Each structure stands twice: as structure tokens, then as C-alpha cells.
């Protein structure tokens, strides 16, 4: 079930918006395509990103995937638990954010709702952008 409390990108990221704060993560489809996740490279608190920037890297044994932010902003928190237990992302991708962000701008990158994202997966059946 794709949760409908949040928005999605075509690159398989999710974003949970709450006013000027946002949480970013990767979708269930993304974690399944990657397989067993073994490492997550996160940015530092205070780093700033423009929409479309790569802000994290998720590694499995045989693949690696960049994670892009659909919104511009400054990192306010990172999910440190993933450093030691990257497999949490396989277990519960929608409960594990990668970063929290103070939103500076939302523009440019198309965001889908849950139904739209599900339809996108069915249509494309492509692996996440690597």
C-alpha cells in the first residue's frame, strides 16, 4: 500500500510536507528494486540543496542509487539510525526518513499523489535512476 499522506517523485522518492518542514525518503518500490540495502550515505545537517540535487546515496550489494530532493531547502536532521542499520530501509521504507529539511522552495519537480505514483510504476516498470 502506498501511503496517501505524502507526495512522490517519478524517481521513487517520497516527501512528507508539513508547512515549512519536510521529510524525505525512498519508496517501497525503490527498496525492492535495490535489494538488500547495505549502506546509506547522508548529508550533514546544515547542507543546502536546490530542487533536483542529489542529497543521499543508497547502496545495496550490487547496485547504487542516488536520491534527489524534489524541493529546495536546508537539512535540519538526518536519520542516524540508518548508519548502523541500513536494512531499516528495506523493512519499513515509509517509516524511515532519510533527512528532514527546512523548505526554501517548492517548484520545478513534478510531485505525484499515491495513486499517480502507483500508476507511474505500473507504466514504467523501470529500475530507479542509478
Amino acid at each position: 500500500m502506498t501511503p496517501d499522506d505524502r507526495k512522490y517523485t517519478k524517481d521513487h522518492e517520497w516527501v512528507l510536507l508539513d508547512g515549512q518542514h519536510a521529510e524525505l525518503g525512498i519508496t517501497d518500490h525503490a527498496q525492492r528494486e535495490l535489494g538488500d540495502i547495505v549502506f546509506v550515505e547522508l548529508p550533514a545537517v546544515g547542507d543546502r540543496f536546490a530542487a533536483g540535487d542529489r542529497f543521499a546515496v543508497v547502496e545495496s550489494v550490487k547496485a547504487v542509487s542516488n536520491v534527489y530532493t524534489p524541493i529546495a531547502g536546508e537539512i535540519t536532521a538526518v536519520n542516524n539510525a540508518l548508519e548502523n542499520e541500513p536494512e531499516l530501509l528495506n523493512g519499513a521504507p515509509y517509516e524511515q526518513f532519510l533527512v528532514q529539511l527546512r523548505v526554501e522552495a517548492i517548484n520545478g519537480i513534478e510531485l505525484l499523489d499515491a495513486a499517480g505514483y502507483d500508476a507511474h510504476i505500473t507504466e514504467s516498470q523501470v529500475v530507479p535512476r542509478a
Partner: protein
Amino acid sequence: MRKPYKLIFEKHCIDRRAADLPALDVPKMDGLVPQACLGEALPLPSLSEMDLVRHYTGLSRRNFGVDNGSYPLGSCTMKYNPKLNEELTAHFNDLHPLLDDDALSAAYELQFALDRALCAVCGMDKFTLQPAAGAHGELTGLMVMRSYHNMRQDFLRAEMLIPDAAHGTNPASATMAGFKAVELKSLPDGGVDVEALKQAVSEKTAGLMLTNPNTLGLFEKNILEITQIVHDAGGLVYYDGANINAIMGKARPGDMGFDVMHVNLHKSFGTPHGGGGPGAGPVGVKKELIPFLPAPLIMKKNGRARPDYDRPLSIGRVKAFNGNFGVLVKAYAYILSLGADGLREASEAAVLNANYLRHYLKDVYELPYDGLCMHEFVLTPGALNEQGIHNVDIAKALIDYGYHPPTISFPLIVREAMMFEPTETESREDLDGLIYALRQIAETAKTDPDSLRSAPLTTPVGRPDETRAARNPIVIAPLSSSDRL
């Protein structure tokens, strides 16, 4: 029955010795090194010579080389490594690399002769022998291309076109040389899409990197048009020589319009892979690019081969000293042994062996592209996927038949690829044995797929848990209290 095998550190026995030195024959002086700079006793294991011999002989028996059996690893050219060549390196073992030119004359003559021979095989004008591996050669060749454009004040040429079927090193090397790697979609047969190439080239194009035959083992029929398109756009064309074993004496990259290339001496020229190295990746160029090659470059002056350091346009050094000289010796001996006829015959036999293997496997596995191949070809499990059998299961099952598996999951453009390159040094019986094994495996996939999923069973260990290794990396043995002196 799988037996555990101890680490060398677990065989430590205090005060054992394997090697000794004559007593110090000069007067011993004290206080030569300040106390603050002196270290403590090192936690290294002590062993007898027999302990050491048993340990490494045991390890060797847990390893598989070309001398153990067929090794049809695609793109790796696992041919026989002649024993003579191993012996010949001994001549140079004790030569210091910084001796004066006269003392190193033999080494320079050999290098110059190897350069000439590689030029003859590849249709290039000059080779540098400095790069230590294929990837190192790529980096060198790409920096040469970069320097060429820069010298022409052509600073905008920052894009390196690379087909999606290319070896992963190509885009990585392009990035390291400061280029932007631009992926070029391939045709289903792994070939270059000429129309897409025409669209992709522009005044920003620095060049194109290409393997020919491509990674599906097919020769680019449009190669002359392809190199022309890139040249017309002002770019250069780089030949990734990983697959040159298919065409020695049959066609030369220089004649196809390539400007820069590397060869892997540890593939086509018979030097051993050494379990991952050392190899050597000489880079050849056409005349206009010679000034940019790494310095020093071995040149002939007054009839003598000597290193030339005075090369103002050179990219510089890519490695200390004279390249992987010991590897160069073996490659040169290989070329001397084979000569022109032998090299051509080696390529012909390599291509024949690949086609023979392909012919007897194409009805049980799926060929993503039908038709004659060059020195290698790609299969997929095809309908065996429906039994839940994947390329990795077939590869692992092959191990139990005594063969090394093919390259799997490469090239990336073919899902579940299995790439076979038997090489010319495999006999017909070897190939028939391999065919038998692979046909048996296809049969077992239908009748007893579970047994394939637990393969291999005949090896010292079963399939290792790679996820566990990557999540909690243990990359050295822990220190135990008994390890101290």
C-alpha cells in the same frame, strides 16, 4: 564435508622462524634513531618454513586458475599463460629501475621492440608502456585526448560519448580525466546506433569510447562510418582494447579510424592475470597525439632505445619508474613466440571456439542476438527463468562440473547476461565438456531446480552471504592476545 581453514594468524607459534639472516657484520652502533620514533614489537605471526609452505599450498588448492580448467570468463580472455614467459622475467629481476641508461639498455631495447610490435598489431604510431592496467590505460588515453583538445584551445570539448553496453571502467575513467560521461543508447545487438550518434555529437564532443567487437561479441559493421562521424564533429575516437583477441592480424584499430587505444597485455598477449593483477595497459596513439603521451617515452636515438624526458606537451607521469616491466617482458616473449602468423591463428581459433560453443548452446539457452559471433557471445537463461532459475544459479552449478563460470550480469543492456569467451587455447574436448555441463544444467533446471539453487557443493565454501559482508564489513582479522610476541 567442508573443513574450516585457519588464517595464517591462527597458526602463530611464538619463536618459530622461517627465514634468517647472517649475523650483522658491521660494528653495531646505538642511539641511531631517536627513542620517540621507535616502535614497539609488531603483532605478526611467527611460523616455520613448513608451516608457511603448507599454508599457502593449502590456499592454492582452494583457488582455481586457467591451469586447473576451462575459464570461459567473457571479456577477460583467460587464455593459457606460457611457462616460458614466466621463466624469462628472471633475467631482469635484480635490475634497479633508476640505473643509468647504459645499464638499463636491455630493458629499454625490449620496451622499444614491444612498442613497435604493438604498433604493428594495432595500426598505431606509438605506444607508452607506463600504464599498469587497462583502466590505467584508459585514464592515460583520455588525458591525452583532453590535452590534445586543450592545446588546440578547444576547451569546450568536455563530453565523452560512451555506449551503455561499455565496460564500467569507461565512464569512471572519463570522469577521472575530467570529462562528462554521456551515455549513448546501444542497439539491441550492442552495436552503436548510428543515427543516435549523429544526434549526440556536437562542438562539445571530446570523443567516443568504443569496444570493437562490442561487449556482445559482435563486430561493428559501421565502424568506418562511426569513426568518421566523430572525426567530422571534431572529436577523437578511443578504442578499448579489451576485446582485441578477436581481431589480431585480421583488422587493426588504427585502420578503423581510432586515434587512441589501450591493450590489456594480460588478456590478448598471454600474461597471467595474477588473481587480479599485476597486468599492464599500454596506450597507443596516432602521430598527432604522440607529444601528449606520458613522459618519459622510450624513443630510438642514434640507434639506441632510450627514455626521452624532454616532452613539454606530455600529460606527465602516470606511475613511478618503467611501468609494470615484468609484465612487458612476458608480453614481448609471447609476441616473439607467435609472430604474425601465430597471432592471426590465435584470433581465428578464439573466434572459432566461441562460435562452436555458441552453436551447441543456442537451443537450450536464449541468444539475445543470433548470428555468428566474434571471440565471445552472450546467452541468457531464457525460459529457465520460469523455473525460478537465474544466471547466477547456472554459473554456480557450472562450478560443480569443474568449470569456471562465464561473466554474469554484464553487459548491463542484457538482462541476466551470461558472457562466454572460451579463448583459443581450449581444446575441442574442453569445449565439448563445457557444452555437456551447460546442457545438463539446463535439463536439471527443469527437473530439479532446487538442486541448482544450492550449488556449488564441491567447493570449500558455499555461496557466501554478500549482504552480511557489506553491511558489517570485517576486512581484517581481529587481534587476539596470543598474537603479541
